[in-house]
């Protein structure tokens, strides 16, 4: 039902970005990883700034959990 959240491929170098995300956690404990992810979500949420997009992303992320 997504109308605003972009699901089509948008990353020119997807493997590189994926590795950046994984590498950022390399030396972190599970608690630190959670802290890191929380900060990242907040930074990106503010950057996106669109409540509709964020609500759709929240819904999509929760699917199946």
């Amino acid at each position, binding site marked *: 039902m997504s109308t605003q959240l972009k699901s089509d491929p948008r990353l020119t170098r997807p493997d590189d970005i994926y590795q950046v995300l994984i590498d950022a956690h390399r030396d972190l404990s599970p608690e630190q990883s*959670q*802290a890191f*992810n*929380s*900060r990242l*979500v*907040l*930074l990106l949420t*503010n950057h996106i700034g669109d409540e509709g997009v964020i609500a759709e992303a929240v819904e999509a992320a929760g699917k199946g959990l």
Partner: protein
Amino acid sequence: MNSGSTDTASAATDFTYQPSPDQSATTPVRHPVVIIGAGPVGLAAALDLAQRGRKVVVLDDDNTVSTGSRAICWAKRSLEIMDRLGVGDALVEKGVTWKKGKVFFGEEQLYAFDLLQIEEGHRMPAFINLQQYHFEAFTVREVLKHPEIDLRWNNKLVGVENREDGVTLILETPDGEYRLAADYMLAADGARSATRRLLGLDFKGQVFKDRFLIADVIMKADFPTERWFWFDPPFNKGQSALLHKQPDDVWRIDLQLGWDADPEEERKPENVIPRLKAMLGDDVEFELEWVSVYTFQCRRLEKFRHGRIFFIGDSAHQVSPFGARGANSGLQDIDNLIWKLDLVLAGKAPESLLESYHAERAYAADENILNSTRSTDFITPKSAASRAFRDATLELARDHDFARRLVNSGRLSLPSTYSESALNSPDSLGFIGAMVPGAPCADAPVTTAEGRESWLLHHLSGEFCGLYFARADETEDSLAQLRETLAGLEVPVRLVPIFPPGSKAPAGALIDSEQLMTEARYDARPGSLYLIRPDQHVTARWREADPQAIRGALHRALGKGLAAADAEAATEGTAA
């Protein structure tokens, strides 16, 4: 625990029980209005009724003002209401006016805020801090000037019968029990309301699994007059803390203890004092005035009106103290209810107007509960993920502006806009700004025709008003005609004409001296008219003063539209 050294607000803080002739009457004496509870909300309700010439009996189970400072932050809207009731200046004079705050995380300051940046040009400050016992003492002093108010101490409610035609109360006094009858009863008997218990009403909501130590200490300290809030300070690791100044060198300190803390142990001075020394430093001398350990709840009654019984203040709704939404919302309750009750008692409005009290104030309570719950969730995260987000927000707040806006140590009380109220008329097109139907009127500086400086809200006091922005070439005749039209409506509406700066206003008119109203605050062009309710909330506004439209809007604001709508709905229901 009382210091005995501080000045109290007025001469009397302990009062004497005096038997009333009602106690020896053979049949219960009937009064139009009986209020249970002589706290800030019950006393303010009594003053509002007395100002309208209504007789009222106020009963309290105690004979003193509150013990401990309890409510301390009084918001601008509360001060405006108390100003209307004759106590505003005394409160502001004694209170500590503040507008700045700081938020700390660990050892460092995250950011500072200044409430006055929001808006200038209001008679009342954004907030004052004043101990509840001072507030009550000032208000009692005013109450005693009104012969309409029969204030009875040591009258404890032990029974209540709520019938369609009236309420019967059973009261316990030092001289035994007696009965009293009332047309209407207002339960202002607090979070542990006896009325609520006697009627067996549920008080549903959420308990927060956390404990807080609240201490009022007397000390000579040179901390600034600011609200300081700490997350995870070195002196209270992993918890929060609050420091706030009150008059008479009394400081409010609030320390989060966690759910596992033992309330009995924690309130013992031998445990409190080391905690405070860790916060204030070993060399600061202080004395404990009042200590309490609290858990917080956010909950409300399903219905604020039960026939002839109205719940006002904490008896109807309870919030956490972060945001100062308890006593402040209670005062807005009485502001909302009393004019309605007065008009119904006068036979000028139908019972349906009383039902709008529940609709409007339950809406406000939900708003307060939502804000207060969010603050509490930020201060006391309920899950590992919630804590991770909270801590992430605080960490980011050091360097990123956006995260400071997410930090929530209490969203400070603002009055509700009853935008959904059935008493409102649909808004006219073409207005901008916050003064939509349902909004509380923003104050503004004005000058009288005689050149005296004054404030708008003083001229919108207690009755329906037509706030009219006169044209530059307005003749006295056209003004007189409008005044007469408004005065002749089913409930008189008092014309409050506003002239632009520099114009020659006729006697009785006001001048928008700083152009705050015509500009952003009311977006008022010449010819615009606002219909204002007796509680200073906008109920309708137009670009042109059309008598037919005003008549309709007033009818609606009196709850008569509601009665018609209800009747219609009932008919439809029958037909279906």
